[in-house]
């Protein structure tokens, strides 16, 4: 019984990043403050980048792909756009993971800047060139800026969660 409870708690903590990701794409929860347009940010990018970088076994690529499909359907974009952008971001994170010897939140933050820039460019060009959907690139740039600025704060919170996951695993 104790073993079962330990397993259950450990699995639950393992599932938290995945639950956050699916909650963000499925629900109406948004971080777009209408009165302050520069304060809209993309928490999904932070979740994907952080967990693929730190612990890719927790956030599988298949789930990231699925989250992208759901996001496209909910927002009303052509199916596949968000999946590609999320997977490109995951690719950046995986690439950095293979190259990094000593990970630190500051280094991750610096790498997050070009990753978001490239990811948003992919998103913008797919919508604009292939589907002729107008996207305000200034809003997109502001959104990317806010997301980048927010990364260390959310990163610290996720560090706590990451430590809890490791502790629960070793109990």
């Amino acid at each position, binding site marked *: 019984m104790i073993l079962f409870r330990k397993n259950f708690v450990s699995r639950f903590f393992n599932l938290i990043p995945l639950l956050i990701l*699916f*909650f963000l794409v*499925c*629900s*109406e*929860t*948004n971080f*777009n403050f*209408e009165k302050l*347009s520069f304060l*809209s940010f993309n928490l999904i990018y932070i979740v994907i980048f952080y967990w693929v970088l730190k612990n*890719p*076994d927790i956030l*599988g*690529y*298949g789930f*990231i*792909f699925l989250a*992208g*499909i*759901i996001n496209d*359907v*909910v*927002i*009303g*974009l*052509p*199916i*596949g*756009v968000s*999946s*590609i952008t999320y*997977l*490109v971001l*995951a*690719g950046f994170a*995986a*690439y950095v*993971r*293979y*190259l*990094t*010897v000593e990970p630190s939140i500051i280094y991750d933050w610096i790498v997050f800047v070009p990753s978001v820039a490239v990811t948003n460019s992919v998103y913008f060009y*797919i919508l604009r060139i*292939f*589907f002729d*959907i*107008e*996207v*305000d690139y200034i*809003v*997109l740039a502001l*959104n990317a800026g806010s997301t980048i600025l927010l990364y260390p704060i959310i990163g610290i919170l996720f560090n706590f969660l990451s430590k809890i996951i490791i502790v629960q695993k070793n109990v």
Partner: protein
Amino acid sequence: MVTSRDDFSIAIRSAFLKKGTKQKFSLLALIIVSIILLSLEIINSKSLNFVRSVVKDVIYRTSFITSIPGNSIAPAITKIQNYFEVYEQYETVKSKLEQLENQQNRINYLKVENDKLKKVINVTDIYNYESITTKVLVDKKSPFLKSVILNKGFNSGLKKGMPVLDGHYFVGRITEVNYLSSRALLINDLNSKIPVLIEPMGYQAIMSGTGDKVALLEFLPKNHQLEIGNLVYTSGTDGIFFPGVPIGRVESIEKKFHVRFFSDLSQLYFANVITSKIIESEQ
């Protein structure tokens, strides 16, 4: 960090081709699948549309369920705030009621007069149309795209292009129809272009969404004399929308003319979808 060229290529290969211990798919394989899905979006076949419609219906319903906790918190906060503002609201409502009573008397008189004049010029009532009331199922406020998901689809007779109203005010049109749900593109979306009529001058223009709470007026006639506060209606020149449905008032922002909507597009809970052309009134 390692800097040699071989290590970079190994890292790229590992990132995109390796599956990892618990991963079932490689990144590259999933990117290819995403590209294939994107290509399928361009193909418009009956069977594909059916599959899309089913997938979307399922995801919309799931999204609606997952949004319930978040949506129930917001009204609770508003309720608490309202308790603190009750007296202030009472005073405002009281003065507004007096104003409305006066206005109502005037409207009653104008209505009688309007009916008489209509009979003279033989015109049908623009509000005589068949509509379906729908509930906004999901309103994911993306900073880039402005649309809402409605809880009725082609099983209720909804079709692409049908106008969507909030009360009597025009707010958008249907752009996607599934079996049980549909998507309405709002007039403030960047991709929305609506032909409008500006009264009392009778100018025709195109109203383009800006992604904000106002829309931009484009293609106005040269040397126009537009004034702030002029009323904007649908012109119906495209043959899709009815003429004379109110949209908003003209406003000037940074030397450009905009339309401030009558309806608050961020607060849509119910919407009327117009399913038929105007019903001819009995002569």
